[in-house]
């Protein structure tokens, strides 16, 4: 937390100097409390704090901050009752869905800009592109829509997609913060942090940062060995298990 307070203070200190420099051009600047999230064996989710300032802050402006995870292929399956049993009967595979998406806004979404402008900038849940792997899945619109909604619903439930937009909180003269929380089941990789400044419905400035989410420490080592040195990994696993088995046998003999 100390680090974030420092950044907070640094940003506050910078504020007067920069606002004099460019008085006509409104600008948005952001920074992250932490540049990376370390996923260790004790990881159970993480809070992400984005700080930022808006120069020449006025009533017509609104700020949007979004956080987007790496994209992955997602299979959605529907269960239905076949001969009394609930089996996976139908499926659609979607290409490149961000495994995490959340965003924060400073004013009501409708007041920021026209829906089309928001969509063009990737703001809001309805900007996520649900492209099926098999183009034929687009033919049956209601079915396609049903699967798309199911994916959103399931991921909202697990915390990977937001129910509604979070709030960008202005804490002082042009200084704001946006709080996000990453659930424990997020994938590792680069996360995109984007900040938008709108004025009277037009985009006037945009900033991007990268948040690196990666496994660290013992967790990272185990993962690395499992995938890259799987032969060693397999032997280590077998030896550990054999050791535990012998220990257990020895203890049991004593216990009798």
């Amino acid at each position, binding site marked *: 937390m100390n680090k974030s307070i420092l950044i907070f203070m640094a940003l506050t200190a910078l504020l007067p100097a920069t606002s004099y420099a460019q008085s006509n051009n409104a600008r948005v600047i952001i920074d992250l409390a932490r540049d990376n999230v370390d996923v260790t064996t004790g990881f159970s989710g993480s809070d992400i704090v984005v700080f930022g300032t808006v120069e020449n802050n006025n009533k017509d402006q609104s700020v949007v901050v979004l956080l987007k995870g790496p994209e992955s292929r997602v299979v*959605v*399956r529907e269960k239905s009752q076949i001969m009394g049993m609930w089996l996976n009967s139908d499926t659609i595979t979607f290409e490149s869905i961000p495994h995490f998406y959340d965003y924060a806004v400073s004013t009501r979404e409708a007041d920021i800009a026209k829906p089309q402008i928001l969509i063009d900038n990737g703001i809001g849940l309805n900007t996520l592109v649900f492209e099926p792997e098999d183009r034929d899945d687009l033919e049956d619109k209601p079915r396609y829509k049903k699967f798309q909604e199911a994916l959103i619903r399931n991921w909202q439930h697990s915390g990977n997609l937001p129910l509604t937009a979070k709030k960008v909180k202005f804490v002082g003269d042009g200084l704001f913060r946006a709080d996000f929380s990453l659930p424990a089941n997020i994938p590792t990789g680069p996360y995109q942090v984007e900040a938008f400044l709108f004025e009277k419905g037009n985009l006037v400035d945009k900033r991007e940062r990268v948040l690196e989410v990666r496994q660290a420490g013992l967790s990272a080592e185990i993962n690395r060995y499992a995938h890259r040195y799987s032969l060693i990994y397999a032997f280590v696993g077998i030896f550990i298990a054999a050791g535990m*088995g012998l220990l257990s046998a020895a203890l049991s003999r004593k216990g009798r």
Partner: protein
Amino acid sequence: MDIYLPVAEMAVPLEVILGLGVAVGVISSVFGIGGGFLATPFMVFMGVPASFAVGTQAVQLISSSLSGVFGHWRKGNVDIKLGSVMLAGSLFGTVIGILIFKLLQYTGQIDIVINALYVLLLGSIGGSMLYESFGAILKRKHHAEAKRSKFWVKITQGLPYPMMFPRSNLCISAVVPVTLGVIGGLMVSVLGIGGGFLLVPAMIYILGMPGTLVVGTSLYQILITTTVSAFLHSMGNSTVDLLLALVLMVGSLVGSQIGVRITKYIKGAPARLLLALILLGVCLRLWQGLFIEPLEHFTTEVVE
């Protein structure tokens, strides 16, 4: 407290996994069976992908079968020849099982197939055990063994490749133990269980092995099979999470010590009745997942 599984890339509550390990340990030392039938479905309930549950279970099985086979080995209760003939079948079964597993994963039916197979296995074994132990408690004796043996003797008589197994004092076609081995291997690699609870009665009733040798021999066979399976799962699929396996093994180490101390109070028919009830309980829970309408009809899975 949550623990993040580095290979499965998800968080699970540590105390639940540890508790599961303890339960597996108690069951395996009290009843002499692996307890994998409890661990694998339970991990799947918790959201661990079936592939990781089965792959990790293969590692945990090494430790439980090794500690089991150790005691039997010392007493000379392992028929190496018969066990090795079974192994020929079970190694083949393991490789086939891993291919079947991949195929089912590809078609997206893996969880359901595992679920259904467990319901079938646990239901039939649990049910027959319940029937048998009730009978035994009521009559204080059971005469089912000899009859069944005769039935299987007739069936297995004409098969080719007869072999002598001096340790078990048997002469039987090699096809029979190899077939049992294939089934055992399939159970290890598809269901993540050693299959002792199916193999042990099968070896008594179908092969006609002496009861003293059965458990040791099946454990010997399971030990080698699960080692190979663990190897294939980690080399081919990267579906072994050693942190998960370690927590399970520590739990089961503690559980087996508890089990060893309480085992003198639970014996014979009442023990089998208790085991039958546990098996049926797990079966019922899995049955629900298969036959009761789920709240959410859709499931999502991230691939790649």
